[in-house]
């Protein structure tokens, strides 16, 4: 079953066309990378899928059911969204923040605690569990928020049917946590979770994503595997950047470096 399908989707929530004619399908276990210059509509695309802005034209289906027909709580049990910025400035402990991810579920304290323990380890925040969120560094906060959205869709066994929306989840992270976070996201996908991820690091996308969609000015410039999408034409026309597209020395993936 296709998790997420967009057909000729357009939206203009404040009278300005933010997205136009976007179409793609996302299958369980696949990771879709979203790239584009600043203001291209990457976050708008995530907001649209999350139901924050309404659809103007086209079809948006989650598990073959139009998004508008989903009940709010059901949706929250299947889809979690990590926004770019967190506004939280109340002194929750890290543990309390992460457990907020369980609020759409009625699984009970024991299961929630067990999930918390697993996710604390996955996001490498176990040592922070009892600290106050407001006292953490930017990167630590980001890992805690990531753990919160993991918690929201976490369950024993298969994650078939779950969808994760991540807006620049690694922007504030050091290189070691960028790598471990990438591995954690890949793990979730291997267990059946579908992921839509916005990252500016092309090499991270090449390593992580099964498909890539390139947005330019709200339109779909290209869609395909990283190898198909990463072309010199893309970097010239969309990013106005001068890059070299090479081969990764150890893995079968393209590698992008500044010329």
């Amino acid at each position, binding site marked *: 079953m296709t998790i997420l399908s967009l057909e000729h989707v357009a939206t203009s929530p404040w009278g300005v066309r933010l997205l136009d004619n976007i179409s793609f399908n996302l299958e369980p276990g696949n990771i879709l990378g979203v790239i584009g210059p600043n203001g291209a509509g990457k976050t708008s695309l995530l907001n649209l899928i999350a139901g924050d802005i309404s659809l103007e034209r086209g079809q948006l289906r989650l598990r073959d059911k139009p998004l508008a027909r989903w009940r709010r709580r059901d949706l929250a*049990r299947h889809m979690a969204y990590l926004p770019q910025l967190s*506004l939280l400035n109340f*002194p929750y402990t890290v543990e309390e923040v992460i457990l907020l991810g369980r609020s759409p579920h009625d699984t009970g304290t024991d299961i929630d605690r067990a999930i918390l323990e697993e996710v604390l380890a996955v996001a490498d925040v176990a040592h922070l569990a009892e600290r106050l969120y407001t006292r953490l560094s930017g990167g630590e906060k980001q890992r805690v928020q990531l753990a919160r959205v993991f918690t929201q869709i976490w369950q024993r066994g298969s994650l078939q049917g779950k969808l994760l929306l991540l807006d620049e989840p690694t922007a504030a992270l050091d290189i070691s946590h960028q790598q471990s976070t990438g591995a954690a996201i890949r793990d979730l996908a291997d267990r059946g979770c579908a992921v839509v991820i916005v990252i500016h690091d092309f090499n991270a996308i090449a390593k992580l994503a099964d498909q890539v969609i390139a947005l330019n000015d709200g339109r779909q410039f290209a869609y395909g595997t990283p190898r198909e999408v990463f072309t010199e034409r893309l970097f010239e026309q969309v990013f106005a950047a001068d890059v070299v597209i090479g081969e990764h020395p150890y893995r079968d993936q393209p590698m992008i470096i500044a010329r």
Partner: protein
Amino acid sequence: MSALRRARAWTIRNIALTRRGRAKGLIVALSGLLPLAMLLGLSNGAIALALTDVFDGLSHTLAGDAHSQSAVIVGHIRLPRVLLAAVMGATLGMSGAATQGLFRNPLADPSLIGVTAGASLGAALVIVLGEAFLRNSVGLQGYAGLTLVSAGAFVGGVISVLFVYRLASSRGGTSVATMLLAGIAITALAGALGSLLEFFADNQMLRRISLWKMGGLDGANYPRLWVASIVTCVVMIALPRYATALNALLLGESEARHLGIDVDRVKMALIIWVAIGVGTSVAMVGTIAFVGLVVPHMVRMLIGPNHHYLLPASALAGAILLLVADTVSRTAIAPTELPVGIITAIIGVPFFISLLRNRHHYGMQG
């Protein structure tokens, strides 16, 4: 690592480790303090009573034969007053906690959404215009007049909140930031209209308006207590049902929506309940400063922002604070009573300033 840093790390760890335990402990401790504060209020006043007299008076009152002096003082004067202070303090404390959660601002106060200013205007309207008219035509006086002022205050408070809410709502939902600004605007407008009324009021009306504005529990009686208790019960049952939603709302509105919360419905419900609770308290005991602001803030410092504990603990602490403040107001320069609003402000303001100056100590930012 220096001893100081070690001690600090230990404190931080302990704050977090035992937070749930502390929250439950605080609620138990406050539940124990509440009856003590009530006894304090019952035994102190213009005439100090020994605890045996208080229990004696209580048992006589419950038995229905309140004839001895202590029974009259306890049963007729102090008991309704003490209970009214407790229920209104609880309503103010819990409403304040809900307001701060809703606005995601630890410095928010129920008066920000216009309820206090609207209620003051409603009361002033009744005092200046309505009462003179009604007294001449219908012959209402004394007790009925007092009730009319309360009704005017309640209606004024609720109308101004609805107005603020309408101003901040658009097709895309309700913006809490706009609500704050609309609340300031409505407060200024109600204040100006109130001043206009005072300009045309005579001396006796002016004194009544200003005394009413200072807040006081001296009008306590059993009918008022019944109304206040029923409203408090309803608010105490209604608000905690939104504890999970309030917890999620602290993350941000869209984050709460992504966690399955119907944010717009929750916002509307919270505003209505807070307006009813605070509107009733302003109607019954006038404007009482800082209980709704300082109490939840203080409780949050001790047990963190989890509303499952914060709401009930704030209700208990609000009840205790108002009980103590009222006892002070009755005894400080007895037999003259000070308006309790003055006492809560005198206790509250220095405390609030010290909170502002030390907010980094407990992880509050912004």
